[in-house]
């Protein structure tokens, strides 16, 4: 049974179709990269998987005992967060909130979980610092630690390296790859960066106005769509 199956999805908003006939499934341990141009429906797809909006038709089925509340999400940063007065520990801990239910405060285990995840992300030393004073890469690590508190199985990452410099970008990809390999966490990532997708991902979904390609990374590289993009990338370099 796949962790997440999308069947014949049609996505869009305000009655406008953005993507049609989207069918794919993600198994436990996969590292799926969703690539495509701006406006191709990548973010819409991610919002639909997170149930932040409804598909126009088709359905999304979760399997392997994955509950809706167990998806960890790394969103793009909002303006509000840029000057938010909150310590790193407070933000990471807020990822545990979906375990609390109606209980108003965090338990000792949840606090421990937050500590463990901060350690994994290498931000334990920053735990008392203010979020708005951190660098872009450090902020992404904080949000990733928070996402890890919310899930044990599936991480959804929305452009996790947007705005980071090349060195920090490489570190971020290494960190995500490590979570996927060593912790067995399934990763679905939206990216503009096709070179990185080919290098790190096990599967690629390339969407335009209709689904152009879904399959393993090695198939993608030899497919027509993939070739067009990789050749173009090389030509540019």
């Amino acid at each position, binding site marked *: 049974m796949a962790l997440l199956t999308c069947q014949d999805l049609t996505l869009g908003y305000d009655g406008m179709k953005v993507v049609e006939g989207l069918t794919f499934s993600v198994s436990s341990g996969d590292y799926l990269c969703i690539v495509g141009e701006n406006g191709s429906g990548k973010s819409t797809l991610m919002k639909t998987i*997170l*149930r*932040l909006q409804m598909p126009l038709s088709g359905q999304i089925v979760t399997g392997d005992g994955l*509950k*809706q*509340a*167990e*998806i*960890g*999400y790394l*969103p793009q940063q*909002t*303006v*509000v*967060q840029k000057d*938010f*007065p*909150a*310590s790193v520990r*407070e*933000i990471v*801990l*807020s*990822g545990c*909130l*979906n375990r*609390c239910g109606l209980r*108003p*405060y*965090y338990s000792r285990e949840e606090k421990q979980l937050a500590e463990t995840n901060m350690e994994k992300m290498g931000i334990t030393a920053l735990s*008392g*610092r*203010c979020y708005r*004073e951190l660098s872009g890469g450090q902020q992404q690590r904080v949000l990733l630690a*928070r*996402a890890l508190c*919310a*899930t044990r199985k599936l991480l*959804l990452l929305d452009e996790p390296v947007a705005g980071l410099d090349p060195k920090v970008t490489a570190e971020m990809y290494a960190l995500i790859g490590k979570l996927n390999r060593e912790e067995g966490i399934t990763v679905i990532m939206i990216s503009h960066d096709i070179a990185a997708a080919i290098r790190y991902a096990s599967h690629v979904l390339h969407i335009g106005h209709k689904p152009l390609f879904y399959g393993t990374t090695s198939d993608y590289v030899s497919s027509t769509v993939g070739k067009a993009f990789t050749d173009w990338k090389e030509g540019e370099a």
Partner: protein
Amino acid sequence: MAILEKLTVYFTYPFVRYALIVGVLIAFCSSLLGVTLVLKRFSFIGDGLSHVAFGAMAIAAVCDLSNNMVLVLPVTVVSAVLLLCGGQKTKIKGDAAIAMISVGALALGYLIMNLFSKSANLSGDVCSTLFGSTSILTLTQTEVWLCVILSVLVVAVFLVFYNKIFAVTFDEDFSLATGIKARAYNFMIAVVIAVIIVLAMNLVGSLLISALIIFPALSAMRVFKSFRSVIICSAVVSVACATMGILVSILAGTPVGSTIVAVDIAVFGLFSLAGVVRGGIRR
């Protein structure tokens, strides 16, 4: 010593004691949610909602309702919910929606008062509703108790849902995606804010409510770096400023609302300075 004696004399009057109690309670409640509102870019909601409450008061006055709260509270709550829970989906967004409702309610309220009011001193009525210069000194014992009960409720809600309010303020999408009922919490925040604003209209009047919500939060954010310390500091600052403001206004005979806001502005200046100095040392 003369000041102390003067104060002792004033505090033998019950209405002075009532004013102090209600003032401190309202300052405390509004500062708790002020931080959330400022961070959610809803600083002006205090202004907008207080004008709505003003409009509702005008209608209540014209209809000769003996207890205008019956009308004012529900209308304000509905407006708060519409503004805060409309969120991203509405066609008219955040600041524009607040400005529209605020100006509209103020104008219509004044128009209705002008057309139908039986009172001889119309501009005096409007002035005291807007600036609250006298109403805090005319509180009855029932109103004081109502204020105490509502304040206790607000503080209880805030304490119980503290972590949820933090999560929803910091990142609504993440909360929704990980199964937090963010919309329900937003609704709750909106209702509590409406209650606080209706309460606060008695103290500083509708024009100065924004100051009570914004200044303590902004002052605290100059200096403190974590959500919890900002909340605690803003509550302390707010209560201290309200107490100071009321005492000064008693002694100097100045309008209560404006005096409190003046103290708030002074404290904001001090905290900004402290923030700069502290930042300088760190670097």
